[in-house]
């Protein structure tokens, strides 16, 4: 975390002061806007909902106890997401899950260039028929296929919309590493999601561009 003070919004600062004066109810107001971010940060590391929820609860309790030590060296949200990531990683180590990470053939190597797949064979599934539920399931499966390191970055950048700098701070890595891991995550997601739906999804938005196979 940066050594110098970071301006935090006045509302947050006031809530933190109220908590430190014993007004515990102010802590709820402080945490509520961060709930989703905390859950998804934990999910990014752990990859399953039950563990992510458990870690989210532990994170909030830990943040409450550690709040007297908060020195405005980062935004409150950055600070609490950092706690969530550390708690999630600790759970992985405690469960020895890192020793049993399944390496399946599709899991990309961490070294070398990632080569995105060339889809020459498209299944005949019109994109209009793709249901939202199916899409959600497909996204979950694709996310689960990422390595934890790459998934963490994808969640913070593309789900939480944190900046490259904030992501680097929370994860304790360089900005260059954020960009590299994000690249691998995005290309892996694209490879996992594209087959059979010709590269476009119906979500009610006109923004998505159909990707046609090359001849």
């Amino acid at each position, binding site marked *: 975390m940066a050594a110098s003070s970071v301006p935090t919004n006045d509302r947050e600062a006031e809530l933190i002061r109220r908590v430190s004066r014993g007004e*515990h109810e102010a*802590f*709820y107001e402080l*945490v509520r806007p961060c*709930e*989703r971010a905390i*859950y*998804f940060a934990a999910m990014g590391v752990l990859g399953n*909902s039950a563990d992510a*929820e458990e870690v*989210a*609860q532990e994170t*909030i*309790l830990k943040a*409450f106890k550690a709040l007297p030590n908060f020195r405005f060296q980062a935004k409150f949200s950055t600070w609490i997401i950092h706690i969530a990531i550390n708690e999630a990683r600790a759970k992985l180590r405690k469960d020895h899950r890192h020793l049993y990470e399944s390496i399946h053939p599709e899991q990309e190597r961490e070294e070398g*260039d*990632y*080569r*995105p797949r*060339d*889809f020459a064979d498209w299944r005949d599934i019109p994109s209009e028929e793709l249901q*939202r539920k199916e*899409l*959600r399931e497909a*996204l979950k499966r694709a996310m689960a296929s990422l390595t934890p390191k790459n998934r963490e970055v*994808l969640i913070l950048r*593309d*789900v939480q*919309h944190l900046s*490259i700098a904030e992501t680097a701070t929370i994860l304790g890595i360089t900005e260059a590493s954020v*960009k590299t891991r*994000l*690249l691998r995550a*995005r*290309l892996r*997601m*694209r490879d996992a*999601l*594209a087959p059979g739906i010709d*590269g*476009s*999804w119906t*979500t009610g*938005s006109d*923004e*998505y*561009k159909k*990707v*046609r*196979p*090359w001849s």
Partner: protein
Amino acid sequence: MVIEISCIEVWREISNYIDDVVEPELRARMDAHFRVCKHCSAVLDGTRNVVKLIADGAEFEIPAGFGSRLYSKLNASLGKSKA
């Protein structure tokens, strides 16, 4: 004159390109490449679609009852700390 760039170099920078954090000279080279390379153009569009899908956020839901369980646990802990 725009210097040609290989597909491998394009793939390395495609995420930065989407985030608009590449230098203008590199951007111009990549743009020229996308105009002539259908594979890389497909990778770009497919990856952009994925980023938009993920950014939509609606596809990622927190579990039902998450909030109430969270605050029950917090209440229990605050109750203990007040005692």
